């Protein structure tokens, strides 16, 4: 009788931070994972309500707690949003394949995020910043619908101070916004990186990923080095329940991070093309 | 090929050639049995058949074809369900051409692993009161040979409904085969998991079946599609028949008999009999 993979481990919410009007970042403690790769996800349980997959957005080097940025969407996320500090939730994971951190050593890195899609990328940025000297240029292109919907606003400046080139854009400007206005593809050309060799990591809504991938190829980034994190409904996270089985690949086992060529073989619908 | 089939095919061919309809819903042979088919070209008309194996109610497809002009082969009960769909504003009578076929009852479909050898007239057909559709643009008379009951065993009269419900797999075949179960947010399919959840088997089968029965009361045209589609053969039509009887006794109303007759809940008047 093996361990029960369907049973989450209890953890407490120790901090809740409002990111945007409908997104909060929850800090859970203790960190019951022995370690994870940035880009992996975990299943969060609201006891008695349900379970849903969320990207881990804290640094893998943070051994004390786990962080999740959660947007209010369905039944489970609504209940998490109603939770308070001290409440207990269940966590199991880490699941899936994260960003290819091993391939990043010594290369330039382009990170493209849209909206809440920055969550799995934040984990990556924090990971990269811990060993900043091992990598080339790191550029983050991040877009949101409005300035108030930008995630991790307090942290973005800090990243820039630690050697990350930051390019922000919003679809619709607000009063006091002096940055660029337009979708994220409009700023993809700005970072000056070694395009043939740079690793690109992108996450966001499916439509954004579709156009970002197209633009990246146009700009001359190598298809071998483009990665995107996809999403799908899942129930078990371990490749048993069949919900995320698309074209021979399980999003929970072979993803959520897919390489460009893998994505071309996914069936339409889940594939960003 | 029976004369009725010949007549049916010529009507359908005429409809398709004149481009009166884009598509005709009918039945075709498929192995030993019969299955629904969609005919859109005059040369495909030869596929159409009509016999006592055609138990499926083609009106089930009408809602998904709402934007098109469709011809439909309809038995008596199918016609009644078209009437109900029109009354409930689900389909437009003007865009449907009903090819009514006179029906003498259909056989129970042959099910996997059954030990019954003979064909048996479906139980719900024994109760049938409408051999011909109440709405018809064309009429094919003397449809299908009168089915011979090869099995002398009368319809099963098991009355232990609780044990019948317990067999249910909650596969929703009854819901999906029913022409009148069209709610996009079905309360028993799990959209509102507080009432009935799809996973709660067998805990919520009682609520599931009774809720469905209540939703079908006064609407069910007793076409038997649910019962015949059911993999474990729960005689659902018998249950719905009882509720229709209640409507008949109390309001003198039977569903799907005429386009002008409004269902009783709609004509409920304040200060009624009191």
């Amino acid at each position, binding site marked *: 009788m093996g361990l029960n993979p369907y049973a989450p481990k209890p953890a407490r919410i120790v901090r809740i931070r409002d990111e945007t009007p409908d997104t909060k970042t929850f800090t859970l403690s203790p960190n019951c994972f022995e370690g994870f790769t940035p880009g992996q996800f975990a299943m969060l349980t609201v006891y008695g309500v349900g379970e849903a997959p969320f990207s881990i957005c804290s640094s893998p080097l943070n051994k004390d707690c786990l962080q999740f940025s959660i947007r209010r969407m369905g039944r489970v996320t609504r209940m998490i949003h109603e939770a308070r500090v001290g409440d207990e939730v269940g966590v199991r994971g880490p699941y899936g394949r994260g960003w290819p951190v091993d391939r990043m050593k010594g290369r330039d890195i382009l990170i493209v995020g849209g909206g809440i899609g920055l969550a799995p990328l934040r984990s990556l940025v924090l990971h990269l910043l811990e060993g900043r000297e091992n990598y080339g240029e790191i550029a983050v292109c991040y877009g949101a619908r409005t300035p108030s919907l930008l995630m991790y606003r307090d942290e973005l400046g800090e990243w820039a101070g630690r050697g990350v080139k930051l390019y922000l854009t919003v679809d619709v400007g607000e009063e006091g916004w002096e940055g660029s206005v337009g979708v994220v593809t409009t700023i993809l050309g700005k970072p000056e990186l070694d395009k043939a060799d740079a690793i690109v990591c992108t996450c966001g809504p499916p439509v954004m990923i579709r156009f970002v991938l197209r633009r990246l190829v146009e700009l001359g980034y190598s298809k071998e080095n483009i990665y995107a994190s996809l999403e799908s409904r899942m129930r078990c996270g371990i490749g048993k329940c069949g919900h995320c089985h698309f074209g021979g690949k399980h999003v929970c086992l072979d993803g959520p991070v897919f390489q460009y060529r893998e994505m071309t073989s996914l069936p339409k619908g889940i594939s960003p093309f | 090929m029976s004369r009725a089939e010949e007549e049916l095919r010529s009507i359908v061919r005429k409809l398709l050639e004149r481009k009166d309809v884009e598509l005709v819903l009918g039945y075709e042979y498929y192995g030993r049995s019969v299955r629904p088919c969609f005919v859109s070209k005059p040369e495909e008309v030869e596929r159409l058949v009509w016999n006592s194996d055609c138990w499926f109610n083609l009106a089930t497809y009408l809602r998904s074809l709402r934007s098109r002009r469709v011809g439909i082969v309809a038995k008596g009960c199918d016609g009644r369900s078209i009437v109900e769909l029109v009354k409930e504003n689900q389909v437009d009578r003007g865009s449907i051409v009903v090819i009514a076929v006179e029906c003498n009852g259909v056989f129970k479909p042959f099910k996997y692993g059954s030990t019954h050898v003979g064909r048996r007239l479906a139980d719900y057909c024994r109760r049938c009161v409408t051999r011909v559709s109440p709405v018809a643009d064309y009429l094919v008379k003397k449809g299908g040979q009168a089915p011979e009951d090869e099995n002398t065993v009368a319809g099963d009269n098991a009355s232990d409904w609780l044990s019948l419900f317990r067999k249910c797999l909650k596969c929703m075949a009854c819901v999906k085969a029913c022409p009148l179960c069209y709610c996009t947010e079905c309360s028993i399919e799990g959209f509102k998991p507080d009432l009935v959840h799809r996973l709660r088997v067998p805990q919520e*089968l009682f609520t599931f079946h009774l809720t469905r029965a*209540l939703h079908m009361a006064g609407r069910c045209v007793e076409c038997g599609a649910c019962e015949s589609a059911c993999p474990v053969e729960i005689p659902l039509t018998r249950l719905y028949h009882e509720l229709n*009887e209640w409507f008949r006794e109390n309001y003198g109303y039977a569903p799907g008999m005429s386009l002008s007759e409004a269902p009783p809940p709609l004509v409920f008047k*304040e200060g009624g009999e009191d």
Partner: protein
Amino acid sequence: MSWKPRVIVFTCWCSSSGVDQAGFEGFTYPPNVLTVRVPCSAVINPSLIVKAFEKGADAVLVTACRPSELRRVAPSRVTEARVSLLRRLLRTIGVEEDRLRILWISSNEGSLFSREVSRILGEVERLGPLNIGGSMVEQG
């Protein structure tokens, strides 16, 4: 401990004050009677009554305003029709139809309520436990 029937009472806003009054005036009714107050008897979805049976109720009682005392007659008539239909359904599937009843209760009829409930409870006790939830659990 001997078996006591569990009865769920759906009361409309008006008749619920009748039920309250039963309490104020010291009429007793057994503790195994649970009341659920709803704005109007006509909003009681029959599925909820069915679910109450499945969840372990031995009888369900619907109390509603007397049609003759209502300015609008329809709501109580709707409830009456629904209950009557549901009783037919229960009879068909082999559940005693007397387990579901409708009771006309005005807001000042506490005594009537407690009298009727006790009477019905006695009848249900004679009928014995229903236990649909239990019988739906898989055997074998």
